[in-house]
């Protein structure tokens, strides 16, 4: 079910200083993070999933089967590209080789939007392949706003940034994470991916109420939800994406729907990936909860 329109890539917008397209991405419905374990079943059975989110780096390859399958899935479903290596908050020089690969993939896939994480992944030419935290300072805000603007100009479109799960905070932070996200989105024009599980994880780890986070994010900037599972270690939670979504996160999802309205949603699973049928139950639950809380789509529109 393709309920979306394309966000065009405007060549004119790649010129420095030109505003990037800022139309709010459309509501895509209820989707799933695409994983190789499900390729065959998706292609043979066309499951009732509204859209797929794909990990950009998994397809930033010279050729072969992954890209061929992505083309086939893209022909049937709306697709969003979700990266893990943009490293938008890194103080290392921008990696234009990476950005070029990302832009090439976007030209092939024509995704509804391109997202990544509000984090950094390395400095000094090294990549730690993790979504690393940084202090929420005015200095960091200026730096990330500049980087987002650079990336948006390069890609010719507004990007979407996700809040990550964090395990540490910094003594020199000058604002909360939600204040940082709100200001970043306002100043750079980027949209926000509200990862419900990550809010729950970070709130537990740092001892605040996840609903405070929820209330602090500007409702009109949120264009996507992530739902995922985690591993509870007692004193802290690790964002492992290897379990079903827990009941507390479902409750927070319901609260997020009430605040943000109808938002494109996916289930993310990265480890202990279950059969497609099993994960479709969770996708259906995201839809059922949204339908039970929000007015029908026609009335909503």
């Amino acid at each position, binding site marked *: 079910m393709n309920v979306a329109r394309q966000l065009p890539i405007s060549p004119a917008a790649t010129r420095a200083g030109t505003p990037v397209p800022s139309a709010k991405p459309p509501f895509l419905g209820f989707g799933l993070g695409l994983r190789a374990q499900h390729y065959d079943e998706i292609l043979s059975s066309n499951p009732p999933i509204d859209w797929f989110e794909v990990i950009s*780096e998994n397809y930033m390859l010279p050729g072969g089967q992954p890209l*061929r399958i992505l083309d086939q899935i893209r022909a049937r479903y709306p697709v969003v590209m979700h990266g893990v290596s943009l490293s938008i908050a890194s103080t290392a020089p921008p990696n234009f080789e990476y950005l070029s690969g990302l832009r090439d993939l976007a030209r092939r896939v024509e995704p509804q939007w391109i997202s990544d994480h509000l984090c950094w992944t390395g400095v000094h030419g090294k990549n730690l392949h993790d979504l690393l935290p940084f202090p929420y300072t005015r200095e960091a805000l200026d*730096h990330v706003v500049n980087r987002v603007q650079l990336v948006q100009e390069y890609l010719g479109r507004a990007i979407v940034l996700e809040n990550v799960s964090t395990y540490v905070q910094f003594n*020199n932070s000058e604002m909360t994470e939600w204040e940082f996200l709100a200001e970043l989105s306002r100043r750079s024009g980027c949209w926000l991916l509200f990862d419900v599980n990550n809010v729950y994880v970070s709130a537990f780890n740092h*001892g605040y109420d996840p609903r405070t986070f929820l209330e602090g994010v500007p409702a009109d900037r949120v264009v996507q939800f992530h739902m995922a599972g985690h591993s509870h270690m007692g004193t*802290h939670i690790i964002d492992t994406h290897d379990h079903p979504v827990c009941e507390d996160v479902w409750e927070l999802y319901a609260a997020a729907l009430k605040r943000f309205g109808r938002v494109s949603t996916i289930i993310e699973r990265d480890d202990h990936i279950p059969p497609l049928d099993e994960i479709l139950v969770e996708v259906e639950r995201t839809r059922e909860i949204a339908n039970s809380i929000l007015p029908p789509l026609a009335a909503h529109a």
Partner: protein
Amino acid sequence: MSDLARQQSDFQRGILSGDDSILAEIPDSPKEKRETLFGVYRNAYTSRLVEAMGNDHKLLHIYLGDEMFDAMGHAYVAANPSQNPNLRWFSSSLPDFLKSTEPYSKYPVLSDLAELEKALNDAFDAKDAPSIEVADMAGFAPEAWVDLTFRAHPSAIRLDLTTNASAVWLALKADEEPPDAVQLEQPSRLLVWRQDVTPVFRELAAEEAMMWDEAANGIPFGVLCSMLATYDDPDSAAARGAGYLHGWVTAGLLTGVSGGD
């Protein structure tokens, strides 16, 4: 250096080398000490990279067993910090590492097995290109054949292994007990490529390997046949060359053929 840049340097050093100076800038959480919380990042770093190596080298992992693969993986991660944003390429230097680092260098079958797995991985997602077909060859007049040159499919990779790693690979793949590792008197000449979407390999005789290597370098068919004539019966060299060529074409190993100018 800005505060943010310095903090990121310290944070990264804390993960890569165990330096604790960043901890002075991190508070304890309500329920946990900062050392434990920062340790989540430290632990995730190596385990994530070793897991990626295991995905790229499933049979080497089986061959070494969990414990030895894990120890080898830790040593590789320590010696080769990732420099590419894409985890896909992290294991690329593993064959060289195994060849040059003790104790692994004492067992050349390890680097050979890693080399073969790497070649299969590289063939899997190599650049796409159309393959020529037998009918494409039929379009050339017999007298034009001496000048024909060929272009190898981008997925094609030639390996010369010094051990019986390919037999070890085949046994492990079939879930069978691998043979004892053996150092070969003559190298095992392998050709790895992608057939449709599946990476495959086969062993080449010395003569075919020579012809492939030279053909891939752009040497025309007539010269290739002259070279074959030095390997075996000169009278059948052209027929042997045509036979090898036919095999490559039907296997999808060639992506281009050109006549002489």
